[in-house]
């Protein structure tokens, strides 16, 4: 085996240009394959982290997002009195009535406007989202025109940095703090006092109500009771589910695009590998004859050529993965088609993606190498010796 490994390796080295070109093709395919997987994973991660499993979001029946939803004040107080709402260590209910609207803000670098989510919050909005941490400044005082901005917004939008002012709804709002919510959707939001926003935007209704469940297992019962309550026309979802639903379209789009690209590209790379390997076989007919007459079996020849192809694809796969890993430094910020709001997510490399990419590259190498290797192993000793 060892001798074959060296034989394959030296052959690859002997035809450097061809090896490099073939491996380059493979590397690019693996790069695209891995980056699409990383992007989907990043999106998924963002949405899974945004929700908390024990939190329940209540929106108006039929509303896909909080932006479309509306919950009247009296409805909100009915929900507040439900026994399933958890009581926190402060002795108060872990419950918040929120307003979510979109505003148009210009970006810092291009000056082009984009829709930003602005969330009206209450006292318990922050404790309900343990992943949100104030990294600079402080939270807004209730009853003031003060706002806090998520890190993604503070960096990318004009006037959203700490100490700066944002003008909307005929008022000037001072940014008094920056919060970081990691890779979650909250990092792309602006928060302010809910009553202030409601009066500024002249919206007399809340968008959603969020609370923590006293006991996680009570969700189904709560959901069926609240959705059939004749005083309410609402829908209850676990927060995790709510955020997953919101970007279903986006996730599906990435999946379809990614899969069609991967299929087309991998066919291209397999063809590239086949060309290289057929040539490798054709150039070495004489050698094959010699090896066979020295006593090497057909199986050995098959293995030798297959090994060569697998080596190329392995080198290509590792290179592609290496290049793709740099994508983790980038953040993609785009509009979510379903909510029309800005959503930032990054490329996320997981071990699963590493295994998958390497497996994928080796599979390409195998598919590209198997036919040429079979041809090599089927040659007659006499014929090949003569041809050499």
């Amino acid at each position, binding site marked *: 085996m060892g001798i074959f490994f060296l034989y394959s390796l030296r052959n690859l080295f002997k*035809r450097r*240009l*061809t090896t490099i*070109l*073939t491996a*380059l*093709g493979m590397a*690019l*395919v693996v*790069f*695209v394959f891995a980056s699409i997987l990383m*992007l989907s994973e990043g999106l998924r991660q963002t949405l899974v982290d945004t929700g908390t499993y024990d939190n329940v979001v209540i929106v*108006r*029946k*039929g*509303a*896909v997002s909080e*932006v*479309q939803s*509306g919950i009247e004040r009296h409805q909100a107080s009915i929900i507040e009195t439900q026994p399933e709402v958890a009581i926190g260590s402060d002795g108060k209910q872990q419950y918040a009535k929120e307003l979510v*609207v*979109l*505003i*148009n803000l210009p970006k810092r670098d*291009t000056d*082009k*406007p*984009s*829709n930003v989510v602005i969330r009206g919050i209450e006292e318990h909005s922050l404790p309900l989202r343990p992943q949100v941490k104030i990294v600079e400044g402080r939270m807004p005082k209730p009853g003031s025109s003060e706002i806090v901005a998520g890190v993604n917004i503070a960096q990318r939008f004009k006037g959203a940095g700490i100490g700066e002012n944002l003008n*909307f709804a*005929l008022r000037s709002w001072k940014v008094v703090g920056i919060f970081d919510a990691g890779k979650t959707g909250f990092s792309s939001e602006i928060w302010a006092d809910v009553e202030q926003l409601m009066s500024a*935007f002249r919206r*007399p209704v809340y968008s959603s109500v969020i609370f923590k469940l006293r006991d996680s297992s009570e969700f189904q019962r709560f959901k069926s009771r609240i959705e059939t309550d004749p005083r309410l*026309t609402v829908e209850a979802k676990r927060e995790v589910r709510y955020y997953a639903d919101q970007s*279903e*379209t986006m996730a599906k*789009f990435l999946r*379809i*695009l990614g899969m*069609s*690209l991967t299929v*087309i*590209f991998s*066919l*291209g*790379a397999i*063809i*590239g590998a*086949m*060309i290289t390997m*057929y*040539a490798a076989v054709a*150039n070495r007919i004489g050698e094959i004859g010699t090896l066979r007459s020295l006593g090497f079996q057909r199986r050995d020849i098959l293995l030798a050529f297959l090994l060569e192809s697998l080596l190329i694809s392995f080198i290509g796969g590792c290179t592609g993965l290496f290049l793709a890993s740099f994508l983790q430094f980038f953040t*993609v*910020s*785009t*509009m979510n*088609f379903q909510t*029309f709001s*800005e959503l930032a997510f990054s490329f996320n490399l997981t071990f699963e993606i590493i295994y998958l990419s390497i497996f994928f590259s080796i599979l390409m190498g195998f598919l590209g190498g198997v036919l040429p290797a079979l041809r090599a192993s089927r040659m007659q000793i006499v014929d090949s010796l003569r041809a050499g």
Partner: protein
Amino acid sequence: MLLAKLIFKNAFRSKLRSTLTILGISLAIIAFGFLRTVVEAWYAGVEASSASRLVTRNSISLIFPLPISYKEKIRQIEGVSSVSYGNWFGGIYIDEKNFFANFAIEPKSYLDLYPEYIVSDEHKRAFLKDRKGAVAGQNIVERFGWKIGDNITLRGTIYPGNWEFVLTGIYKGRDKTTDESQFFFHWDYLNEIVKKTVPNRADQAGFYLVGVKDPNLAVVISERIDRTFKNSLAETLTETERSFQLSFIYMTEAILMVIQIVSLIVIIIILAVVANTMAMSVRERLAEFAVFKTLGFSGGYILLMIFGESLIITSIGGIIGIICTFPAADAFASAMSNYFPVFIITKETIYLNIAVSFLIGIISAVFPAVRALRLQIAENLMKVR
């Protein structure tokens, strides 16, 4: 003549390899043309927009409405020829998978403003007469197998409840770029029910569409409209339909950029495949080239042979690829009609495809050609047996 014959013979000397290379190029050209078409489909809304129409909406953002009283005020502004208005309804037909755009509009003025939506006079009359009437694009009518007179129920996401409509008309697009998958119904019908159910949301328009007399004055008229409502409770933002559409594209720029980078990668991949093939062919034939040189053929002649061979392979691959792009795009278009209502391959894409295959043919032949030129006759003749 001899040259052409030599090139042809050489290109297909190794049939298997040439076939594989051609197959590779075709695939890459399909992918490239396809990605370009996706990018163009993204811009389809912009292409279809008119310079003589303005869109007025709430300056805070799209989700905030404007009072219906603005209609008369806008109409009085100098340079404005007609005003229509509407609301994004956001209704769902049976399932979220069946997405199509649906709007509540003021029917008469809207159809007048959009001459590219062609509705027969008979359909138009029926639509205007029936309060629950609706007009749908050819594309979605075919997708769901609707017929005139059918009852259609949409589930409201923004306006709660189930909404019943009667299909009274079908519109066709005047241009290829016209979106034929929209659904329009009477704004009055929406307002009437909203007044009963959620009175505080009644009498509001999501956007105004403004026709201007002279498209050259669009910017001036936009400023006039916005100035009229400055410092009011609902300030407006007016822009041409084109820049309104563009603003959506800017918001999804990141995805667009990814697609464009990927199409560049496609080209590099094909380049690697073809360059590889050429490198191998030349390496195998070094001895032959030595013979050619000995016989007195010039370096230029050998160069032509190599470049010709490479170009023949890439152009055959390119042609097959371009031909196959059409059925591939059709299949994709029907699978993704939710995302891209307009998905057509443009002439530019085809020209670009041709240019790309040509360029790849040239670049792939450069290194092997240099190698063949530099070859030492004596050294390579030794290989001839």
